[in-house]
């Protein structure tokens, strides 16, 4: 079936099998491998992307469900060489260890800050409950998200 998705601002039309998961479509068909497959069971959040601006787990969507919609992956956040404020804050505050969960964490954080621009530390921890960091590096991740929120408030 033919689907057309606006991916990081660019319309991409492809032929897909209906059973194709969005994450496989993003990685294998569109070649955007920043989005990771972690648990593959809607638990870890490594595959988080934005669908019409809201965080979703792309392992639990069919590509056909995103037909006609707009998605943003980690590759679509930066403006050229200029990192998105959340990306910059993750770098500044070392919000990563091995880096595998990072794309999903960043996307979940972007969605969280869109809904709650001025979160408390508790809000951030709750808001990232759908993302697991197996290095257990949560402390700096939370610090980075709070810093990004503060930066955009200033």
């Amino acid at each position, binding site marked *: 079936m033919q689907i057309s998705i606006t991916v990081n601002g660019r319309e991409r039309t492809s032929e897909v099998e*209906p059973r194709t998961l969005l994450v496989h479509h993003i990685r294998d068909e569109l070649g955007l491998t920043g989005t990771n497959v972690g648990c593959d069971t*809607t638990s870890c959040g490594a595959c988080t992307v934005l669908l019409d601006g809201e965080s979703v787990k792309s392992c639990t969507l069919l590509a056909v*469900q995103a037909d006609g919609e707009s998605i943003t992956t980690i590759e679509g956040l930066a403006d050229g060489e200029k990192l998105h404020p959340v990306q910059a804050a993750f770098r500044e505050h070392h919000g990563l260890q091995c880096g595998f969960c990072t794309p999903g964490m960043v996307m979940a954080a972007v969605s969280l800050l869109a809904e709650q621009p001025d979160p408390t530390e508790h809000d951030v921890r709750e808001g990232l409950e759908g993302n697991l960091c197996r290095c257990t590096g949560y402390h700096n991740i939370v610090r980075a998200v709070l810093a990004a929120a503060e930066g955009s408030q200033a």
Partner: protein
Amino acid sequence: MIPLAFEYERADSAEAAIAALARHGDEAKLLAGGHSLLPLMKLRLAAPAVIVDIGRLSDLSYVRDEGAHLAIGALTRHHDLATSDLLAAEAPLLRHAAGQVGDPQVRHRGTIGGSVVHGDPASDLPAVLLAMRASVVVRGPGGERTIAADDLFTGFLETTVGPDELLTEIKVPKTAGAGWSFQKLARRSQDWAIVGVALQLGDQPGIGLVNMAPQPTRAVDAEAALSAGASPSEVGRSASAEGDPSADLNASVEYRRHLAGVLVGRAVAEAQGS
């Protein structure tokens, strides 16, 4: 993990979805947010031959004030329930519990109707609907009918919604001002409850239990004890003897019963503000 191959149809109206079900019979499954069905299909525990995608029926996404009750469209997402001002004022238990389902990503996709018709005893919202004495509206080839939450859940992942019917709306009595509580114990915050409790005070106090039977269930003896003025711990003790819980990796039967007692006791105390 990839689902088995299926035919994909997109319904552009409730009528079209019902017609598709009539055409395909048992072979077809409706896909709303997909957060109950797709995980099952990926594990190949479900392998429908036809998927009828109703996820774009935006006219089934709403929360409306209809006088004595609220009407909630079946495709209303958990996120929309959890941020609804109308629910905050008139059905705060449902609003709060919707915000406890899964995690933000799941709440951005999962729908109340999908969660309810899935009939999973581990889901939060069926227990809430039981506690609130809600009902659901289903539409099929023979027209529309209303099913009380009490008559909805018949067994593990089984409901009285027919294979040719579409759940369109949930009717929730207004509970403004009445005490309520939602208690859930999970290993990690995003996990299913090991045991959960939805409690709604009012003329007819309701206690819905998560994961304490093969299907979402009410603690009727505990409700009677509560109506008779029993203390929180007495109501909890009554609830711990109810249901028909099973053991799994997370909990033994005894532990589930213990949790039900503790959580119901806490729920009563919180709802009564003591």
